């Protein structure tokens, strides 16, 4: 137990829960539905949530500090360990940030490979979210379906770079690996395979009475609150804000593709579910276009073996599956970054938890944690 006192503490210390209406329970860090080692202290009145407090840091590894003792290239694999279900996105953000600092640009073939892999990763991340979210709400079957299909994505990753989860797929200046023979066919085959599967998930859940009742009107957050709290990603879009960095400030090759930004209206869990399901279909669209017109050419830009970026700082952010993933890098002209600050979407989105569950029921806390789609590796870093 931590020594620090929570703002949720009961007023009288000698009150036991049996003779009081208020009850403080610890959800986590070892709890089946907190997606890792999140600890939420809940103050309950019966089943009603009066307040929550998140205790984080159980998975803190000091990634940002590690960066200060590594060269730019050496730090690249570490970013994969933050959001480990969307490692490719992390790598993309970091590589592009350093490229901005070095003032180099990746060749267009590399950019296309990056887009394909990142969108595949977005699909994988959303599939994992869907499975665990449904599991938290009590539907156990979608989890196995999504894991079955996510496996196909991981197989493509494995064939491309040898790793399934912490891929380290990109390098500063491009990609290290040329696509393997049959990459395009594999991806196209996957697209054909997965489209009916997404319909299958929707069949199980979208019109399921219990699912709708459990998610509609749960964990509502308004667009204004989202902006005030810095919430980004599908959570923001479900509240009705059409904000997607892929469109707003296109990076990689996203400006070449035609896709839509799905938005919701009510900002509740059901809308967030629909937005993510739509995003999966849009990702398929992007991948389809990218595979169709992937250009030939080099995959690495000319980058020095020993990277010594000029003195200065850079902030670069990308649209990770969970929201805006930003890297703020300060260079002092040496081979190692002076400071790397990561803006992880999960960490910022988690702030909204208290506001979203206040006044709702215990079961909704689980639903909201699921719908925020947090990864504790990224929250704690």
């Amino acid at each position, binding site marked *: 137990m931590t020594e620090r006192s929570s703002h949720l503490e009961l007023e009288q210390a000698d009150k036991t829960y049996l003779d009081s209406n208020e009850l403080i329970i610890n959800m986590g860090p070892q709890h089946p539905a907190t997606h890792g080692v999140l600890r939420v202290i809940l103050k309950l009145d019966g089943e009603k949530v009066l307040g929550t407090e998140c205790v984080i840091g159980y998975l803190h590894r000091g990634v940002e500090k590690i960066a200060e003792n590594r060269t730019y290239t050496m730090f690249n694999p570490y970013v994969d360990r933050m959001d480990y279900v969307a490692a490719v996105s992390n790598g993309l953000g970091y590589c592009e940030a350093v490229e901005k600092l070095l003032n180099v640009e990746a060749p267009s073939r590399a950019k296309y490979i990056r887009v394909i892999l990142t969108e595949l990763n977005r699909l994988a991340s959303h599939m994992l979210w869907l499975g665990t979210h449904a599991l938290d709400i009590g539907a156990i*079957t979608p989890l196995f379906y999504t894991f079955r299909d996510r496996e196909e994505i991981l197989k493509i990753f494995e064939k491309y770079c040898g790793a399934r989860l912490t891929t380290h797929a990109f390098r500063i200046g491009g990609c290290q690996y040329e696509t393997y023979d049959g990459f395009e066919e594999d991806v196209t085959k996957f697209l054909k395979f997965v489209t009916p599967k997404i319909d299958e998930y929707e069949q199980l859940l979208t019109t399921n009475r219990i*699912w709708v009742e459990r998610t509609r009107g749960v964990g509502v957050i308004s667009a204004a609150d989202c902006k005030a709290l810095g919430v980004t990603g599908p959570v923001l879009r479900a509240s009705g804000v059409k904000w997607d960095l892929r469109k707003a400030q296109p990076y990689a090759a996203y400006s070449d593709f035609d896709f839509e930004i799905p938005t919701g209206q009510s900002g509740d869990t059901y809308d967030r579910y629909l937005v993510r399901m739509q995003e999966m279909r849009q990702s398929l669209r992007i991948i389809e276009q990218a595979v169709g017109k992937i250009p030939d050419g080099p995959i690495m830009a000319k980058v020095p073996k020993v990277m010594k970026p000029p003195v200065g700082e850079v902030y670069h952010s990308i649209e990770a599956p969970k929201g805006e993933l930003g890297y703020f890098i300060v260079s002092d002209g040496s081979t190692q970054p002076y400071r790397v600050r990561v803006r992880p979407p999960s960490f910022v989105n988690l702030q909204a938890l208290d506001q979203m569950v206040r006044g709702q029921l*215990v079961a909704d806390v689980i639903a909201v944690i699921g719908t925020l789609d947090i990864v504790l590796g990224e929250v704690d870093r």
Partner: protein
Amino acid sequence: MLDYITSYLKSDTTPGQAGNFFWAFVYILLIFLGLSVAVIAMNWLERKILAHMQVRLGPMRVGPHGLLQPIADALKLLIKEDIMPAEADPVVFWIAPLIVVITAFTVFIVVPFGPTHAVTDMNIGVLFMLGVSSLSVLGIVTAGWASNSHYPLIGALRSSAQMVSYEIAMGLAVISAVLMTSLNTDGTGTLSMIGIVQAQQAQQTWFIFKFFPLGLIAFFVFAVAMVAETNRAPFDLPEAESELTAGFHTEYSGFRWSLFFLAEYSAMIAVSSIAVTLWLGGWMRPFPHWLTGETWDLVFSLFPGVTFVLLALITFYSTIRMPKHPYFRVQTIGLAGFGAVLGLIGLLLFVPPVRDRIQDIYWFAVKVAGFMYLYIWYRGTFPRYRFDQLMKVGWKVLLPIGLGVLIVTGILGVVLS
């Protein structure tokens, strides 16, 4: 002594009514044994069926196709360290699972597996079953309280609220079925489980089809309420794994936990048997009044044997498909042996005297098994209700429907008689 034992065989009532304690004891033993086997089989079947719904294999390692998994699990639970939380109330902590398991088994005294195949026939059979099975909530509440921990306490509170509210809808549905029993020539209804089935026999219909769709609606109310009553998905809030870790039995482990497990499954079987007795004609075979005559009797009497032979054939098919690696030799032989046992049972069931005696029990078991499959199916398909929604369904949907059906059934009964 021998006369005492044999005298019962000539009578055609239940041992309880005949006052024959020896046979009553034998029946109780048989039911206990049968239930234990059913729970073990259910454990394996649930994992396998659920697994196949979820594109995975389920237990495959312990024994061929994981057949020995439940036994291995039971052994593990028995030899596990006995853990009791330091803050728990030891006496109540011990008593709670006992209450649950005793109530779950006691209800089977009146379950009619056949016209004479019950321990006893009470004139208040249905009432007894509902009353005793609702006592199990007491065990759950005490379990949650005795653990002296937050999650079990919330689980226990949820459970008691849920069971109490669904009991009412359940009771209303049951009453409408009981009302239907009084629609005979002399206008006497009955609460006796055997009497209810005999009333269906006399009226030549299952009560689910009586006053269509009234019987069906009453059955539907009962079928929903019984899932809630047994705390199974989608109403498994008291033990909602993702919310309350394990609900009221969070602090339980080992043998005491296995008692809860046993009780949960036997309660499922118990409420399913009520449903079968009240609406699905109990031990009656399908179409007893439509497909009559010697030939049909013979055809239907072959069903038990055919079922087991089919199971044996499936097992043999799996045996052939086992990997041909020396590592799997013992498993293959074991599976073949299991198939042989099933086949032998099947052949035994073809013998005329056995076949005639086993008929009722077989049809009853098949109907109950159908419900068990539904339970697994629900679990694979539905998300979990939230507590307030659960209450809403109980009080605002099932209760008015049950009440309406009861009133309409009553009026119809008066008008028609």
